[in-house]
């Protein structure tokens, strides 16, 4: 049975590494994304991640396969959903390959594509009490445009 890519539990990087390492892969590159205590100059207290689960699983699987096919790397990844505190790991990726160029490239591909394509969202709880969905595109129309 496939391990899901989304998890509500703490991510264990060592387990991801164990899933990709092997005797013929001499390089393992990992990426950890952790919750920072500030965003756009404002103090953050905690975060909530939510996902469109079934689609996120499919998209993570696609991205993993791309990395494996393009660089011959073995890749494992997990993204946390639910409530996270400062310093908690939100995403972890492990990429193993015979040589380090491929391991670095595969790991980088996965985080870039994950941020671009996987339907996951985050809501920031700021120290001033406000709560906001992170949306760099600021896409919603204003009430006046209604």
């Amino acid at each position, binding site marked *: 049975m496939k391990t899901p890519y989304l998890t509500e539990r703490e991510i264990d990087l060592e387990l991801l590494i164990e899933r990709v390492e092997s005797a013929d892969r001499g390089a393992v590159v990992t990426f950890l*994304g952790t919750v920072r205590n500030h965003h756009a100059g404002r103090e953050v207290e905690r975060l909530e*991640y*939510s*996902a*469109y689960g*079934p*689609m*996120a699983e*499919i998209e993570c699987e696609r991205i993993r396969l791309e990395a494996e096919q393009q660089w011959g790397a073995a890749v494992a990844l997990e*993204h946390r959903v639910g409530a996270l505190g400062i310093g908690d790991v*939100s*995403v972890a990726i492990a990429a193993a390959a015979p040589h380090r160029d491929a391991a670095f490239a595969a790991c980088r591909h996965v*985080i870039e594509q*994950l*941020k*671009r*394509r*996987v*339907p*996951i*969202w*985050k*809501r920031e709880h700021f120290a001033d009490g406000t709560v906001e*969905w*992170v*949306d*760099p*595109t600021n*896409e*919603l*129309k*204003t*009430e006046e*445009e*209604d």
Partner: protein
Amino acid sequence: MAEKLTLTVRFLARYAELLGTESATVTLSSPASVGDVLGVLRGTFPGARRLPDRPLCALNLSQVDLATPVAEGDELALLPPVAGG
């Protein structure tokens, strides 16, 4: 009388707050496109009028554009700009 089709629409993350619900059942005349479903939503939910003209849409878990036809029993999801990682 034109044939009708019914599908489920899911509103994710911020869109669920905007529309006040996480999902809706929409019935409209067949044939219909994703864009037609959005038109019905804008007429039904006041919050839907704040959606962008071309929100990110997934039909049965695959990304589609507004011209894609919808069918009976489909699941259409409206997705805000993603922000994982």
